[in-house]
């Protein structure tokens, strides 16, 4: 920080001098070289900061706990103590002396996949309506969506808790899916709408003229054209649902067989009985699906979220 501002100040002074002769003096060239080095140093620092925690997670997960406690400053485990026992411990069902993460993985997958499917089914028509059809209250709907994000999630948690307890949805995965839908559909509509707007209206009108209904146009013309954005949106919903913690905690905490991976890890990391390295294996199991998905589709996702931001 200090070096950056210092060199920046030097650069400014030099730049001011350089303005007059309209020729790049050696000073400016030297600064550019220095900036080039600084740039690589910064990139390296950022990489260390972002990757180190994940690396640490992975390396701790293949060590027995005794090894960590005996020699905490050693990062790389020695080859003879490498173990996958931690993964067995964390994945095996409770009856076999494990922590039951395999069940949790199944729960998380059910919740995340149903959230994606339902959110897309709900958001696609909504996004189409908002981008193309002049219905009453079209403008107010966007304001409504925005307003819902002003309130802390915990404020709606209280009445939802009561409502869902009443209708028997609280201790179920379905209740969780409904909450995730409410949290993701407005953003999903926004993401898909941005893309629908890039589909030329004339193409759709041609379809209408050829006798397709509005729904037919949506299904036959607009959707196939916006497939990349739909995938990006689906991924976004998947990540939210897979990573969510607060509502899983509020709705499912007393039903261990229904815990999601996030909830399971947070609950077990509070207890002293489960060794840290076993929980690290649990963290890897929780993180890996998301990271794999992310690397497979990084380009799609980053494009989908920031669509429209280029114009500032």
């Amino acid at each position, binding site marked *: 920080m200090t070096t950056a501002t210092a060199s920046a100040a030097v650069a400014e002074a030099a730049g001011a001098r350089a303005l007059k002769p309209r020729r790049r003096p050696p000073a400016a060239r030297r600064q550019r070289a220095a900036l080039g080095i600084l740039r690589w140093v910064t990139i390296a620092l950022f990489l260390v900061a972002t990757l180190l925690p994940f690396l640490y997670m992975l390396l701790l997960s293949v060590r027995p706990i005794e090894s960590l406690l005996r020699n905490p400053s050693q990062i790389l485990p020695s080859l003879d103590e490498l173990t996958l026992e931690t993964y067995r411990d964390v994945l095996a069902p409770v009856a076999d002396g494990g922590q039951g993460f395999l069940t949790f993985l199944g729960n998380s997958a059910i919740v995340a996949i149903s959230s994606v499917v339902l959110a897309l089914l709900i958001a696609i028509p909504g996004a189409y309506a908002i981008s193309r059809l002049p219905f009453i209250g079209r403008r107010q709907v966007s304001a409504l*969506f925005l307003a819902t994000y002003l309130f802390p999630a915990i404020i709606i948690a209280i009445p939802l808790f009561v409502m869902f307890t009443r209708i028997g949805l609280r201790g179920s995965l379905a209740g969780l899916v409904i909450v995730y839908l409410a949290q993701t559909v407005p953003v999903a509509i926004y993401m898909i709408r941005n893309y629908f707007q890039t589909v030329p209206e004339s193409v759709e009108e041609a379809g209408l003229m050829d006798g397709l209904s509005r729904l037919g146009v949506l299904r036959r013309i607009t959707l196939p054209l916006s497939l990349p954005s739909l995938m990006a949106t689906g991924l976004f919903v998947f990540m939210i649902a897979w990573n969510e913690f607060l509502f899983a905690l509020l709705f499912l905490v007393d039903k261990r067989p229904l815990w999601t991976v996030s909830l399971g890890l947070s609950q077990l*990391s509070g207890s002293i009985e489960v060794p840290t390295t076993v929980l690290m294996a649990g963290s890897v199991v929780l993180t890996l699906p998301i990271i794999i998905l992310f690397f497979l589709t990084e380009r799609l996702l980053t494009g989908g979220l920031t669509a429209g931001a280029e114009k500032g």
Partner: protein
Amino acid sequence: MTATEPDRGRAAQPPSADRPRARRRRTLTQKDARTGLALMSPTLIIVLTVVVLPLIWAVVISFQELTLIQIGTADPFSGFTLENYERVLRSGALWASLATTIGYTIGSVVLVVFLGTVAALVVRRPFRGRTLVRAAFLLPYVAPVVAVTFVWRIMLNPEFGIVNEFGQNVLGWDEPIPFLTQAVAHWKFLGLSIPVPTALLTVIAFEGWRYFPFAFLFIMARLEGMSREPEEAALVDGAGPWQTFRYIVWPQLVPIIGVLAVLRTIWTFNEFDDIFLLTGGAAGTQVASVLVYELLTVQRNVGAASAMSVVLAVLLIVMLGVYVLIMRRRGESL
């Protein structure tokens, strides 16, 4: 394309046939309006029942004196009282947690925007492996919050965490720093003892680490959309790197940074997961949403919890209103 239909109609039919066409037009618009509402209705139903209705109910509860068990069985429209608000506003807990929340929010938003801008600037020019580097920068944001908070807790652990090991063995710290459990440390500097909120700063650092990718993503998109020409012209005119940044790049970034700051402020202000999972609200990190959670689960005081969250929401709306007003006054659009 829109013009084709009326044109064809006019060519094929005499002008006297205008009326039926007008009627057909109107019904098409009406049909579209009806389809629009129908297509929108699943979303509206979900948002209204799962967000709006509970919100309204929470506001109602905040004016009633109820325990967790009474809710739902008690008459929802009776027994209105201001007692919850009185209790919440009078207690020191609200103001203490608000001060913490505001410090936490300002610290994290500034850090997130700063780190995001720096990260976007350093990977701006193409280089080999840039795609991978960019993906790596995004990891903290996409990884599950429970997993990353757990790793941070272990890394910062005073007994066997790698950070304290490194600090003691390499940097020569006298004793391990309890990053997440120490409320205040006293740094000796020039004979002065400066109080430092250790846990709060650690939580802010975590926030910067976890959310800088969000700012990075948007600033990068903006940088990519920028025309290179003004910068090249400046280079020809002999401008230094700092001048180019200060007078050409930065002004183009200001609007997106403004939007990012607003979004991050809203989200950080309401943030619950990160702090709850890192410190549980201990050691001077009890932000408002964690306090609400505690009122709800530990003290089981639903009315006070609701009143507290309503106060928070109102505060946020007032802050945003002031921001919008300032922006309007400056003649900028949001």
